[in-house]
């Protein structure tokens, strides 16, 4: 098999992955009032990792990210369910959320919602599930 020169692709990927990860965090924290949220933030995160998988190979990425993605999916689902159950403990219906306005030093008046925890759980579940699917069906064995 002939050696393929893909220096351009690797150099562009090193810049693009940082941009995509930043964009995924921006999508994640813009949720609940504007388009965004846990699901699409997790999918954009997965897009960055898939780009790494495409340009490099499975073994070096798994060596540098030594995390089992199935465990991440489980932790995410558990987090989402427990934030739902916390509403039941307080005497409200399942999945009811609370929010409050807090004065933070730099950001000023900020709205802090407990839906962020639920969104973190959704994002972790999406990341774990998608990466598990990609690494199991994308394998060339």
């Amino acid at each position, binding site marked *: 098999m002939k050696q*393929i020169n893909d220096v351009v692709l690797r150099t562009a990927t090193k810049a693009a992955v940082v941009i995509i990860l930043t964009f995924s965090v921006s999508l994640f924290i813009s949720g609940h009032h*504007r388009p965004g949220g846990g699901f*699409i933030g997790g999918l954009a995160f997965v897009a960055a990792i898939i780009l790494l998988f495409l340009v490099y190979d*499975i*073994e070096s990425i798994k060596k540098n990210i030594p995390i089992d993605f199935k465990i991440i999916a489980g932790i995410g689902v558990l987090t989402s369910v427990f934030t739902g159950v916390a509403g039941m403990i307080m005497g409200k219906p399942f999945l009811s959320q609370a929010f409050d306005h807090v004065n933070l030093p730099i950001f000023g008046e900020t709205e802090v919602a407990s839906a962020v925890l639920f969104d973190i759980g959704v994002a972790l579940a999406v990341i774990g599930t998608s990466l598990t699917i990609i690494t199991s069906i*994308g394998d060339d064995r």
Partner: protein
Amino acid sequence: MIEGILFVSLVLLIFSILATIYRLVKGPSAPDRVQALDALGIYLIAGVAIFSVYLKSTAFFEVILLIGILSFIGTIAFARFIERGVVIERKQPD
């Protein structure tokens, strides 16, 4: 005036997208179809950008970035499949 220009460019974009879809369906070889898909993503980005200028709104900028990212990744995946036969390699051939 400016709205007329934007409307005309949207109509022209529709013709471009139709021509690209013709290439996507008809295209004799696989690289032609991959090129057509990439161009289709760029036309969609252009259409959304013109539409957000028309509405004077910044609400669609995330859509533009997201279509760009997904089109980039899809093009790279198809190119690797055409060139090497596999999409994701298990080990670095060195």
